[in-house]
């Protein structure tokens, strides 16, 4: 295992200390329980936005804490959801009378831990609502399973709800908006290499030089199937086809196209994937009104990409464009 770390058990703590040192004006970092909050939290008159999940997906979620996005993020161990007490402590630290929205990626662990935290918060008199993000079309949805995973759509939901919360939205309207984003966003990813969880020291799976994992999540799990390496254009096609069909996206839909890197893929390759995805979306008749290209929701050093497509309402577009000032996304401020 070749990583720029000191000790596997120290990875999350030291990364948090690094963030605290790098962004003293933006963030406050608490250790044990671990959470990251806006430097100016709790913001008076604002509904709080809290998210979290396992570490190893940086900049998500800690890099999205700040004006116009999250009020708090709770990082668990690498690829392991945070615990209820940790989520509760973070929620307490940022939430005023208007309550808090928990944005939760749909993984059994995240769902249950956030659920328990929300129960505890309500016992304390803190109004908490939760919205699950489950945008990964690689997973067959069904009432009888854990359902779809939350992936790239989470980044967009956090920005858009963050814009709305900053603009004064109350908890019920944030819940509606977040559900609406989730209902209109679809994602899918593919991995060229595995990743290695520091504590395990072994690659999450073995791939031959000419193989990729298709329909991958963000935790180093194997994907839906293993296929031969293809060109960037073909991979973009294979990712876009199920995304387009699932919503389904229709001619003239205004969309945000997000091409994401999984951590080990350089930007030059993401531009090539973006080119292909853009062409496919345009050929499908979509209006691509906003774009995001970069590594925003990652799986440690995994090489690969995911594509996320969001059908925008005017509200979503306005809140997407609203100013944000976080370590990872920053504009208009």
């Amino acid at each position, binding site marked *: 295992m070749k990583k720029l770390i000191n000790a596997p058990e120290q990875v999350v703590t030291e990364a948090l200390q690094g963030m605290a040192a790098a962004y003293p004006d933006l963030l406050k970092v608490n250790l044990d329980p671990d959470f990251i909050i806006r430097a100016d939290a709790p913001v008076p008159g604002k509904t709080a936005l809290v998210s979290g999940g396992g570490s190893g997906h940086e900049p998500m979620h800690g890099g999205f804490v700040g004006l116009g996005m999250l009020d708090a993020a709770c990082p668990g161990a690498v690829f392991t959801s945070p615990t209820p007490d940790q989520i509760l402590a973070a929620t307490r630290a940022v939430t005023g009378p208007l309550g808090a929205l928990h944005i939760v990626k749909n*993984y*059994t662990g995240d769902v*249950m831990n956030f659920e328990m935290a929300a129960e505890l918060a309500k016992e304390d008199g803190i109004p908490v609502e939760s919205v699950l993000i489950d945008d990964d079309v690689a*997973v067959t949805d069904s009432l009888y399973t854990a359902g779809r995973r939350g992936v790239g759509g989470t980044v967009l939901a956090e920005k858009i709800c963050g814009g709305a919360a900053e603009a004064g939205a109350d908890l019920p309207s944030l819940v509606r908006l977040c559900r609406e984003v989730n209902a209109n966003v679809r994602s899918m990813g593919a991995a060229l290499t595995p990743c290695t969880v520091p504590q*395990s020291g072994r690659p999450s799976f073995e791939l031959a030089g000419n193989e990729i994992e298709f329909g991958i999540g963000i935790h180093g799990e194997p994907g839906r199937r293993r296929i031969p390496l293809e060109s960037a254009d073909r991979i973009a096609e294979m990712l876009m086809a199920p995304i387009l069909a699932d919503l389904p996206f229709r001619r003239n839909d205004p969309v945000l196209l997000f091409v994401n890197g999984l951590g080990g893929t350089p930007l030059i390759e993401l531009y090539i994937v973006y080119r292909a995805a853009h062409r496919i979306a345009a050929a499908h008749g979509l209006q691509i009104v906003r774009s995001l290209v970069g590594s925003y929701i990652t799986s440690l050093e995994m090489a690969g990409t995911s594509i996320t497509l969001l059908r925008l309402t005017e509200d979503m577009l306005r809140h997407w464009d609203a100013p944000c000032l976080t370590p990872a996304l920053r504009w208009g401020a």
Partner: protein
Amino acid sequence: MQAQQADDVAFLCDWLRRAAQAIEERRDVLSALDAAIGDGDHGANMARGFRAVAEKLRDPPADAASLFRLVGMTLIGSVGGASGPLYGTLFLDMGKAARGVPVLDAAAWHALLSAGVAGVAARGKAAAGDKTMLDALIPAAAALSGTDSVRKALARAADAARKGADATIPMVARKGRASYLGERSAGHMDPGAASSALLLSMLAETAA
């Protein structure tokens, strides 16, 4: 009564310490099972949790119900992931069921584990055959019914749990992270079922 309680707590502490050690030893095996169909952290998660539990055992509460509750809270606060709330719920609900139980005989164990398993099923919205820890826990609880010595009953439960874990191998997962793999999840033992079987085998060993 107080002497009985002290005996029960001592027995449970003995079990939990053995369990913590066994999990530490099987850490990589459990993580490897999880790597095949999940995210490879189950061993690390369980080891972190049971290390925290062992820490608490230095100064254990006086009765079994409180001890179960402490273990449950400790697991919830330290494991994370799916298994944290689930094992936490298992122990919390065993603790609730243990309230007022005078002695941990076979019938009591049956009542306790059944309550805990029901809690896990409710928390995880899963059932037998979903390829989860429940596939070890449900048969284990069932095997405790009947009138028998604790030693024999727990030995039967451990055996049932091990067989239940083995039976997860051909299953296609419907719950938890392995469900994302669809058909590819078949052919591997569920890591949570394996850790449940391990906990029960340590329990039987403690009673033996």
